[in-house]
């Protein structure tokens, strides 16, 4: 079980990176709401982008391994508006043209967060993002991880950031 302090500290770079990515590439501000523990594997969105991360945390002379995952989930309406803003075209249905929008957003957030995580003592290896699409889809979280969900409001609608994290 991860220490609560490390989890809170670990999640901060992702929230800051998400704000930066959305302001720069989607032209909207994010308003993160109160985080909560997520027990269900069912997504609260219709499109989810999933990206794994693993590495070591060096703190106070000790080194521990960690495993984490970043999930961004959007209801269809929000996803279409985000894709439309990013690509400067109007999209009203899910298709191949916008299938990797979520993955690219996840990629940018993770890439930016990595820099701050490195300063905090985390070495990290990024995986390649994958997309899950469909109402009430399930997300397979790594065994033994705690999942925190952060609802986020924006001018394009609601979305959800999920972070799971475990130390070994």
């Amino acid at each position, binding site marked *: 079980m991860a220490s609560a302090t490390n989890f809170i500290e670990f999640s901060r770079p992702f929230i800051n990176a998400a704000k930066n990515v959305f302001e720069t590439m989607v032209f909207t501000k994010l308003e993160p709401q109160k985080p909560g523990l997520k027990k269900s594997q069912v997504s609260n969105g219709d499109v989810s982008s999933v990206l794994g991360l693993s590495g070591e945390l060096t703190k106070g002379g000790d080194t521990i391994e960690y495993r984490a995952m970043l999930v961004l989930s959007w209801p269809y309406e929000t996803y279409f508006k985000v894709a439309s803003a990013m690509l400067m075209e109007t999209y009203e249905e899910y298709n191949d043209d916008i299938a990797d929008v979520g993955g690219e957003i996840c*990629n940018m957030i993770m890439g930016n967060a*990595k820099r701050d995580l490195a300063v905090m003592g985390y070495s990290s290896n990024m995986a390649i993002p994958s997309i899950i699409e469909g109402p009430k889809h399930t997300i397979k979280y790594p065994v033994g991880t705690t999942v925190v969900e952060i609802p986020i409001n924006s001018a394009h609608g609601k979305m959800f950031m999920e972070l799971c994290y475990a130390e070994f």
Partner: protein
Amino acid sequence: MGLKADMKILVVDDMATMRKIIKNMLGQIGFTNITQADDGSTAWPLIEKANKEGVPYEFILSDWNMPKMSGLDLLKKMRASDEFKKTPFLMITAEAEQGNVVIAVKAGVSNFIVKPFSAQVLKEKIDKIFNS
């Protein structure tokens, strides 16, 4: 715009979303002659072909992380050849770690841009490459 609008540009990224964003931004800056490739491995034959035909690419914008041939490998391949030693090459990456910058500079990159970025930042990077 000081640079010619029809400068031949190649955008290399495995993500269609990012290629479209960069193409849109280049369009906003004023560029009109833009070709896309989805990997370093598909970009290289395009670069060679254009050169053989006497109309070489004048500017390459490439993502770093791509599945078959990375942007770094594409850059090294270009810098190892006499024809493309000096072709302006802007590396795009999602990873903002300092180590990456050093690696790219050693490999001969012209400039470096970290995602996310605005059209204005892209324009400034291009201006630096062509005005230095």
